[in-house]
């Protein structure tokens, strides 16, 4: 039974058990990811409460409009990812390929906006601690700390998206070669779980980083 084309691997009784094992493994991985981002969110919570005014000033330096636009793009990519999983479950190869490509394009749009609109702009404005930081208003050193949180948290999030784009590329090639059907789509669904998780992280990053200082 060393046939890579077998729908149910030999250690599993049936497809349901195989599917639940894969899902459980992915959810446990996501639990470790929650703890990973949780450390950053804990640090953010503490320093934001210690230096509230500086964090609000730093947040005000960010562009909430671009943040909102990127949130919408990412939610859109989550929809196309969910539709990709649905296409895989119903065995529609052309739709699956279309929705994987859509998800990759929306993810790429998010990353391009982040790198070339936001970070380049931040650099020009002089709000990048360590590289180019010229902000000299009140609480400058604590504003720098906020910007560190901003760059590390959005940077690690972007890194997760780049990793996701890589896996999506592999899945796209596999889908192209017809490796998925109504009975074989676990890989697509697990990728979906990961992609939606990255979306959830952004759902928290957006208000905490961009909207904190919007009202001032």
């Amino acid at each position, binding site marked *: 039974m060393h046939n890579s084309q077998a729908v149910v691997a030999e250690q599993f009784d049936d497809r349901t058990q195989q599917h639940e094992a894969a899902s459980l493994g992915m*959810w446990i991985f996501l639990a470790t990811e929650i703890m990973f981002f949780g450390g950053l969110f804990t640090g953010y919570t*503490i320093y934001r409460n210690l230096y509230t005014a500086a964090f609000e000033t730093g947040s005000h330096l960010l562009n909430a409009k671009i943040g909102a636009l990127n949130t*919408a793009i990412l*939610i859109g990519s989550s929809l196309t990812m969910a539709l990709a999983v649905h296409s895989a479950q119903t065995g529609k190869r052309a739709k699956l390929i279309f929705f994987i490509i859509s998800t990759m394009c929306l993810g790429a749009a998010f990353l391009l906006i982040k790198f070339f609109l936001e970070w380049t702009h931040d650099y020009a404005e002089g709000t990048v601690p360590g590289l180019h930081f010229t902000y000299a208003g009140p609480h400058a050193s604590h504003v720098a700390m906020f910007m560190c949180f901003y760059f590390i948290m959005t940077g690690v999030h972007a890194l997760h998206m780049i990793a996701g784009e890589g896996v999506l590329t592999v899945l796209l090639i596999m889908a192209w070669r017809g490796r998925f059907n109504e009975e074989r789509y676990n890989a697509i669904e697990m990728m*979906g779980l990961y992609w*939606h998780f990255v979306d959830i992280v952004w759902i928290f990053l957006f208000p905490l980083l961009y909207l904190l200082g919007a*009202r001032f």
Partner: protein
Amino acid sequence: MSEHIAPLKIYFSVFLALMALTILTWQVAYIDLGPWNTVVALLIAVCKASLVAMFFMHLRWSASVMRLVLFAAVFWLSILITLTVGDIFTRHALPQPHSWHAAAFVANTSAARRQ
């Protein structure tokens, strides 16, 4: 029996709800509610995250062990945040025991003198 396949309509409804909540949280941020801005922003974020987890991530139809893993992760995260925040922000409220403070002070100053 195999996994549940959700009707497409649900995905589009969830997408529209997420978009509406994004616009809501974005616009509310421009209204000054004092400390309530953060509360509202976090409540909306939790609603959005729950929608994504329940429907996009199929938690609504998954075996309950998946929900248990998510609950465990969120519970552990709440321990991390509660205890760390609780420690940092009560250091001034609760004075250091006098004897401990004195011992640490002596140790520090004698170490400094040796250098």
